């Protein structure tokens, strides 16, 4: 539950930052993107608790809105926002950068058995942290676009 809230909070905060950024840029891309549902091999539904609070001040029209396909540096992310009762009720991920063809040739016979272990938190102090941020940004952009369309 705590984790869900954290995720919800992250999405909301990043979206707000993004909205402000977008307003400053003065480029409200309101563009209807049709998505081929044949491309749903990797699509997943995210039931989301990211509703009220921060978004309460904005009124949205009920319906489903597909965000633009957003660059995640190594692929594209596209989401569909569903508005129910004027609030963001659901986010569905339509496109996601893991759907490439598996055409890479790897000589399986030469593969060593790589070490696999359970994730364990490390507590030593660090100077910096390497992690993926790309997809979340693209996620926020696509969602921001979907919500821009939903604005009443």
């Amino acid at each position, binding site marked *: 539950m705590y*984790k*869900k809230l954290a*995720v919800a909070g992250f999405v909301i905060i990043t979206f707000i930052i993004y909205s402000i950024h977008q307003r400053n840029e003065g*480029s409200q891309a309101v563009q209807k993107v049709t998505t081929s549902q044949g491309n*749903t*091999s*990797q699509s*997943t539904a*995210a039931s989301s608790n990211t509703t009220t609070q921060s978004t309460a001040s904005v009124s949205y029209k009920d319906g489903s809105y597909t965000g633009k*396909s957003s*660059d995640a*540096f*190594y*692929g*594209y*992310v596209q989401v569909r926002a569903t508005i129910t009762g004027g609030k963001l009720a659901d986010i569905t*991920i339509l496109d*996601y*950068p*893991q759907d*490439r063809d*598996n*055409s*890479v*040739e*790897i*000589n399986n016979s*030469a*593969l*060593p058995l*790589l*070490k*696999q*272990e*359970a*994730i*364990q*938190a*490390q507590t*030593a*102090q*660090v*100077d*910096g*942290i*390497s*992690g*993926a*941020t*790309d*997809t*979340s*940004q693209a*996620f926020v*952009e696509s969602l921001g676009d979907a919500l821009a369309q939903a604005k009443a």
Partner: protein
Amino acid sequence: MIKQTRVIMGMPIVLMTPDTSVTSENLEEVFSFFTYVDKTYSPFIDSSIVSRINRGEMGEPEYPDELREILAIAKNTKHQTNGYFDVWHKGNFDPSGIVKGWAIAEAAKIMAKFTNNFYVEAGGDIEVSGVNDEGNPWQIGVRNPFDRNQNVKIIILKNSAIATSGTAIRGQHIYDPVQGKELNDVASISVIASNIIDADRMATAAFAMGAKGIYFIEQLAGYEACAAMQDKTIITTTGWYNYEAV
């Protein structure tokens, strides 16, 4: 330790150095470079080179030398990854997969004018040189993709780089529609290389390869990787342990 963070190109840019002779004007020069890169190569900015190429307003003969340099790296990477890395996606020109690593490398060159000891990060991709403020090599955490407050590995980097590709959309599960079960796929993959351009482009390509990515890195000389899988296990290449902090 001098540390400054700014959000440019939609991501946090972090500069660090233990060298107190580095001035804020020096750091400003590095940040300005990232701003220039954003303006020039962002697919989201109408006046950028990338947008102009996509609108058909700029043909290949007019490409600036800098773009040619970036495209040469991209072409080489496409070849090395059997097409997994491509600056063309669904008919759209987008070199940002290379631009990010290239920008960090160029920023590191600017930092190197001022000090031998520095850390340059753009959105989780890092190049380091020399030592930290304790006189030790830079110690870097690999973020747990399932809990951003945790590190799953801690490594020591000496004049080298690490880049991570993955999904930050948490709570999602990828299902195989054919077999109807959850895929044991990659949540994130971190790649260590001698420089950030290599680390970044190979992390990107390896992530696109899914579960095969870690084996792809295993076969590349001079690279090591650590993949966090959706089943919450970690797979490392055979030489990864050499970088782990004890």
